[in-house]
């Protein structure tokens, strides 16, 4: 069996205010292999988003080990974490989070701008991914001129533009109606079929089932993992 792309060992996350400690994650162990589609499910406040933030290097664990691509991702400086995010991770958000004053094309090329890629290469790459998600005809539009489903497709293109090792999707269908939700899920499944590694947080059991494996969180702990059509208790 190959080395996992992501390995979390004994990850803890504690939020501390003046007098109160909140344990958001406790003893989380998780492996995600290359090409795998993992969904993380659980009730509100169970730590799903915190886990995704740690996976996306947007936040740091209080303790534990995080290996990304066989390299330790804990204890890095802010700028190094930003660089890894830029190259290894693609984000898809529930509320799309496209930047309103940038065109569809500019939104998609943004991660490549931060990478310092030459303009011509950026342009090719951005147009290609827009083609992949079927949005190349809207390259010059502003986000406000698109429907929700179209915006999420653009957000997927933006996540893909940097050819990341893993796509992290936080409730990608949460702000969409069922038809658009289905469409976006189809897109993610297609990407998975083409070899993308995806980790998705979702409430929606219909879409959680699309993943190879579903990890259930409760009170900051992984309480069960189930694989598609084959369930076992962890």
């Amino acid at each position, binding site marked *: 069996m190959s080395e996992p792309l992501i390995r979390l060992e004994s990850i803890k996350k504690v939020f501390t205010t003046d007098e109160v400690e909140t344990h958001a994650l406790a003893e989380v162990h998780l492996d995600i292999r290359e090409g795998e589609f993992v969904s993380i499910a659980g009730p509100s406040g169970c730590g799903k988003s915190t886990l995704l933030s740690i996976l996306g290097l*947007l936040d740091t664990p209080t303790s534990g080990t995080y290996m990304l691509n066989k390299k330790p991702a804990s204890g890095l400086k802010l700028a190094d974490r*930003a660089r890894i995010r830029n190259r290894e991770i693609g*984000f898809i958000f529930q509320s799309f989070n496209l*930047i*309103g004053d940038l065109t569809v094309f500019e939104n998609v090329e943004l*991660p490549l701008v931060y990478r310092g890629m030459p303009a011509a290469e950026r342009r090719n790459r951005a147009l290609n991914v827009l083609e992949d998600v079927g949005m190349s005809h809207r390259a010059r539009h502003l*986000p406000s001129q698109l429907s929700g489903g179209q915006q999420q497709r653009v957000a997927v293109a933006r996540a893909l533009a940097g050819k990341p090792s893993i796509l992290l999707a936080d409730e990608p269908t949460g702000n969409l109606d069922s038809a658009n939700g289905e469409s976006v899920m189809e897109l993610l499944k297609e990407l998975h079929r083409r070899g993308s590694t995806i980790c998705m947080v979702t409430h929606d059991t219909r879409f959680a089932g699309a993943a190879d494996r579903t990890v259930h969180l409760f009170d900051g702990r992984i309480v069960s993992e189930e694989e598609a059509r084959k369930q076992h208790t962890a």
Partner: protein
Amino acid sequence: MHVRTFLKSLFREPRTLVPAVALLALGVGGFAWMLALHRSVMERSFSAPRPDRLVSLWNARVSEPQRHGTPSPGDLQLMRGFPGVFSGVAAYFPRHAALGREIPANVALDEVTGDYFNVLQVRPVLGRAFSAADDAPGAPATVLLSHRAWQEHFGADPSVLGRQVALDGEPAEVIGVLPKAFHTAHGTDLFRPFRWSDAKRQNHQGHFLRVVARLQDGATLAQGQAAMDQVAARIKELFAAEVPKEWLDQVRYGLNPLVDDVLGQGLQVLRLLRWATFLVLVLAAYNAAALLLARGLGRRAEMAVRSALGAAPESLRRQLLAEGAILGLLGAGAGLGLAWLCLPPTGRALSWSFPGLSWEGLALDGPVVVLALLLGPALGALCALAGQPGSRLSDLLRGVRQPGLAGPGRARRILVSAQLLVGASLLLGAFSLRHSLTQLLKADLGLDAAQVWTFRLQPRMKLAERSRLAQELAQRLRALPGVVAAGATNGLPMSGLRSDLNLPLADGRHLSPQARALTPGLVRALGFHLLRGRDVAATDTAASEKVVLVSRNLALEAFNTEDVVGRSLPILGEPFTIVGVLADLREFGPAQAAPPIFFLPMAQSEALWHEDLCLALRVAGPVSSLGPSPAQIQAVLREAAPGQPLAKYQSMEALLQAQLGPQRMALAFMGAFAALALLLAAGGVFGIMSAAVAARRTEFGVRAALGATPFDLLGQVLRETLRLALVAGLAGWALGLGLERLGRATLGALPEPPLHLGLLVVASLSFAAALAALLPALRAARIPPAEALRES
């Protein structure tokens, strides 16, 4: 409870609230300062009842409508022919006189018509005003004292009435003392009636009067102008036979509010300042609102909770209003302190432009303080309302274009640019004025003002005696140690004397050059540049051939060549031979173009107006050498001109500086406003960028998620700001050039500013903007992305 909560938050969160208080302090302080200034200027300049009904009547040439001339006694009689428009028309002539006999004091004396105080509606506090009998020909001389002169020269003696005083050696009876509140802009000490003969009363030749009239209730300036047009028509009728038509076609009479005349260019500067203060107030309020918005955006959760707990929208709005009002009150308090600190230096700057008025004790008075204390809280409350999340301002700054995140936003760019643009324009205006002033001080005036000292006498004697006295004084002054040249004239350059003379030429054209008299030695003493021919000499007497010195521009205008020595110039019907050509002389100061001018030897200047006898002496030695002491000059006067007080003993350079008073005042105020505008622009950038960063937290979170490093985010905010500063700076450069042209139109012929000043403005503005944006940029760089994304 709201107030207590807010005060606690003020100390807990000074990062936003202290700059907001400071901005409101600048706005309200500027308002209080301007109001105090305006009230003081109006009160101190002309303290007659209902000054808005007082107008100044003047004559002018159609081709030079801005250059107001002085009417003649004959003109005055014509102006009095409109009782339906003017309830009274009076005149005065300001001069200086010697008060006392043994050690005479130089005093400012206004000779006035008998109805002068009736027109002004000013009543003496002691004694009586002038009557028609006091102004009758041959009436015994009477005098009214200003309150200041009564205190300074008569020890505020209440029994001064009836006392005989010597004015220029002639006795005059004190008949009254004027109220303390009454003073003229030129600081008059004494008033005396003209007592003209009937012939003099009808005389149209001597143009020297300042005419003041009171408009009838209900009469308008337009009606006043129509009356003046009738005066012009009457003059044309009267002189149609004697004066060429093209000369008469130039005759114009007009009027304007007296305060415009009294305050002159300085009033225009004050009007510009009023607009600048208003602009500062608006900018300060807007920036404070932006800062409060930044704070409000950080309190959205708190407000949502309060709302969820049952707080009615009105209750939340009341809380915002109360917070804004307290903020405004604090701002008003600080602003009043600021205004109080600024008023004394303001008084000094005002004294450059209005030297005749006293600017001591310039202070905030009760109404100004009350108004400021009302304005502050009102403005603060308005800012708080405008700056609440969800307001129009909030939408503009966030650039709401849902769906999609808030971007840099065109509205925000426009708002920041507008402030920077104003800052750039004012900065360029100040830099240009400073440059212009420096250039003016270096400009070739046609004379050498360094090491020249001057003083003034007002001898009452015939021209032959006056000429002899002038030559004797010059000779005695030349004998003083260190003096290398001395001479006399009837009007020093830049002393304010205007004496236009109609000069008909052989080819039928008419010129109106300035006419002056001089004695031998003046050309050298003042350092006039003699381009051709010779100076006047002691041999140019009343009996010898009539000779004249002309300026280069007069030679060119009259003869189309500089080579005019030996040619003849007809002056009041008599031929004068040109013996020398002088370089163009900026007679009316460095900011005015050099007028064509000629000089007659004093002994031959019967045709000219003689009031003052001005002496000039040049000292040898280094530039810093002092002139003779006043005691040395007084000793010369005691021997050669006993009874004549020494007046206005000053260096020519001081006279030159005084000429630039309005420019210096404008520079001081413009400089202060430019600094203020830069501060406000920086405050505005800080406020708007703070609010923008707060409003764009999610966007920065997204950018960080996409791989932007903290340095990228810092750079982005700074880049956005610098781009705006650059564009605004360039636009401000263009606008500033326009303003600067306006300033030059107001303040005289100033030289063009060089190109590098514009670059300096753009660089200064960019630096200030970058500095102001640094803190918001650092905040953007430090936004925790996970937290920002959770908020979305």
